[in-house]
């Protein structure tokens, strides 16, 4: 089943004289339970694309369907509800609330969704166990490491069982060990909990954990590769090959 469908999405910035086509007539589909990475150089439009999908930004034209809803048609009030019920977010800089403890940060998503208060603690503990952060639940975000913060953000994104999890450079602010742990966590989230994840990254190592990688250049999809039955290492090399092409003169490839 399709979870996400983009039809001819365009996002232009700037004035009439100086238009930046951040996303230029892009279409794509994501199936339920997929783990998709979007790659591209700086300025290729990957974050803008993610922002459009996550309703943080508005599209210039085109349609975005999540499930059967066209989110470009939703009003602001409906959008809040839509985000609450359908989307989970993971940011590069975590976006945790410093005034709340880790467990309160995770429970926030449930509280907002008006979950039964008796269930909240149990669910938080449950997800914290799965992501290996039950030790730090009573600490504040500034007291824990970056990797732990990001896993807290994952827990928050996951706890509502959203249709789609959107991650913007989740390993961007982490060291390599924490990155690896986080990516393995996300892989598990995808496989065991059947979460659909769309991740933006410029790091091929991160992308190699995914099942499918989309390459963006100048706001368009340049290439797409699938992992299939390949090992992670083989896939990683394949990604590197595409990136080499992407970095070179495209007309030579064609």
């Amino acid at each position, binding site marked *: 089943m399709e979870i996400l469908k983009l039809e001819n999405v365009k996002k232009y910035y700037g004035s009439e004289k100086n238009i930046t086509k951040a996303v230029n007539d892009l279409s794509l589909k994501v199936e339920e339970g997929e783990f998709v990475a979007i790659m591209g150089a700086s300025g290729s439009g990957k974050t803008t694309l993610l*922002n459009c999908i*996550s*309703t*943080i*930004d*508005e599209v210039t034209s085109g349609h975005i369907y999540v499930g059967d809803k066209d989110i470009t048609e939703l009003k*602001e*009030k409906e959008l*809040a*509800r*839509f*985000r*609450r*019920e359908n*989307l989970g*977010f993971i940011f590069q800089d975590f*976006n*945790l*609330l*410093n*005034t*709340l403890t880790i467990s309160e940060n995770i429970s*926030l*998503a449930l*509280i*907002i*969704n008006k979950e039964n208060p008796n269930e909240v603690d149990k669910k938080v503990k449950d997800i914290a166990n799965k992501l290996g952060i039950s030790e730090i639940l009573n600490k504040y975000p*500034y007291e824990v490491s970056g990797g732990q913060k990001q896993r807290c953000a994952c827990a*928050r994104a996951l706890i509502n069982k959203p249709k789609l999890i959107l991650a913007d450079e989740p390993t961007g602010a982490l060291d390599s060990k924490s990155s690896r742990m986080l990516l393995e966590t996300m892989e598990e989230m995808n496989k065991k909990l059947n979460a659909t994840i769309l991740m933006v990254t410029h790091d091929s190592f991160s992308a190699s954990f995914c099942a499918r990688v989309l390459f963006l250049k100048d706001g368009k999809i340049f290439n797409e590769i699938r992992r299939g039955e390949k090992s992670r290492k083989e896939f990683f090399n394949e990604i590197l090959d595409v990136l080499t092409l992407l970095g070179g003169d495209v007309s030579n490839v064609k």
Partner: protein
Amino acid sequence: MLSKLAIRNVKRSLKDYIIYIVTVVMAFSLIFAFNFVSFSKEITELSATMDNLKYAVIFVSIIIVFVIAWLINYTMRFMFEKRSKEFGTYMILGIEKKQINRLFLLENLILGIIAFIISFFIGIIFGNIFSAIVMNLFEMPYQISLKISLTPVLLSVLYFVLIYTFTLFRSSHRMKKMKIHDLLYLEKKNEEKIWKKKKYRNVLFIIFVIMGATGLYLCDYFFKIMEPHMMLYLLVAIILLIISIYGITFTLGDFILVFISKRKKIKYSKDNLFVVKNFEAKSKTIGMALGTLSLLITLNLICMNMSFVMKDAYENNIEQQAPYDILVEGMYSEVDESWTGIGDNREKAWEYIDYIHQNYDIIDELHYQILTLKSHQVSKYIDDIGDNGLYNYDSYLKVSDYNKLLEMLGVDTIELKDDEYFVTGDKTVEEYLEKIEKFNEKITINGRELSLKGTTIKNFRLGWSTGNSFIIVIPDDVAKNMQVVTELYVFNTKNETTEEDNMKLEAIGYYEFPDGDYIAKYFPLTVRGYMEAMNKSAMTIFSFSLLYISFIFITVVGTILSIQTLSDSNKNKYQYKLLEKLGVEKNQIHKTIRKQITANFLFPIIYPIIIAIITAFSINRLFYAVTSASMNYLVTIFITIGIFLVIYGIYYIATYITFKNNIEDESSR
């Protein structure tokens, strides 16, 4: 859930909210204090006119409410920007904007109310201090009181409600306009330029300077001529000055920048580039706020200056009008009644004098006359024939009377030879007296030729001759066959006179009709105690209101500059870290920080100080006649600026310390 989150947020982000709380507490403490004082029974009963203080304070409060509303709105915007990312996160999590808005407003309201309650108590302390000062002015004993009447509390609550209705409404509007994307990326956003074309800015700068100069000139011109139909001039002057204050704030940054970047030696020496660039960005983006600050500082300096000048004017007024404890004037006049307006009141006046002799311990007294020959030998030098025509004739005072009058004031007397005369007057005739001295003409009275001994403006009192601003002192034996201009009787009593004495004495002047009605017939008498009470209350009302305004303005300016500089510190943290990484020493960085803050604090005060000094000159012109001879407007304006700079300096130091900590202390956030 929402209120719980709000309370938790308030508790945990109290550190961030310190600026906000300090702002509200300071503002409302002052509002409370001034209201308490103006409504306190002890103060309003000081004299009959003190009741007006209430209305003056209420009137001033209307202005204050506007300024404070702007200030709190500004502080709230600062908090909003600081927390924009948090709000963005809430929205991402699916909380509706309306709810987030309510959360923020609730937080601010909770803190506002807490701060309001704190300021109530600080207000009582301040109020007591202010009361003590006012009571001291009236030479009354003061006891600390915690009694508070209801009206000022209710008024303060009303101001609070008005201010918060406005600020919460503004904040809510701000939130409504925000998109989730804006909230998440607000920190990274570059501020927008207001003036895009650089070329015109320098031309504009010069135009604004010219406008300012024209405004100041018109202002001065108005004070020089001082006629009602000239009000338009003053209005135009004020508008020009306001435009020029804003305009200069907008363009000065660029003007300096262009000046410096053309001179490579300055540009690339030390840390100038860094400081200047930071500063340029500032004047471009927050020019409007800086302009308002400059305007407030200008008003503050002028208000404070006026308050000092007024104080001097009132004190001088008492000395001029009521030099002695009791003065019975206008008893009798032989000169045309149309000129002096007196006639013969001797019968009634002696009733006063008898009463005074019977009821008071008299230390000293003098009965004397002002005389004339209706000649113009001296008065011809005094061009400016006033509306009352008192300069029409030379009027004389016997030297023995003059010396007695001086003696009663406790100052040195003069000696006058038989062939000499002496001229004394007040400040307004100073230049004419100089002219008289220059021409050094001999005058002839009753056939005797007298030469000029000298002139002085020292120790002259308007009360001596019912408002005449100069008088000629002559030897006693020449004063023969003269007409009496006016006859006076002065007393110095053992005990200080009071308002009550004035009432008792005036009552003698009433005629009672058979049907019980009273009519005032004659009481040209001046009781010093009454004059003091009248002048002191007027002075207190004026000075108090003006000081109220200037205190509030200084608070506003200090707070806003601190907030701005500190919000810079959050944004500049990375820049300074970068400088450190590039190998700049810590000491050097502190020096750069100091320079940056100094630039921020110095910028909005330079132009206002210039305006204040120039207007001090004009204000001096306006009040020249009524201020004391020893009053020096330059000293006054520098004292004013000094006081301002001391308070301003406290803000500066506090800001520097916090700024430094902010930059160094990464882990605190």
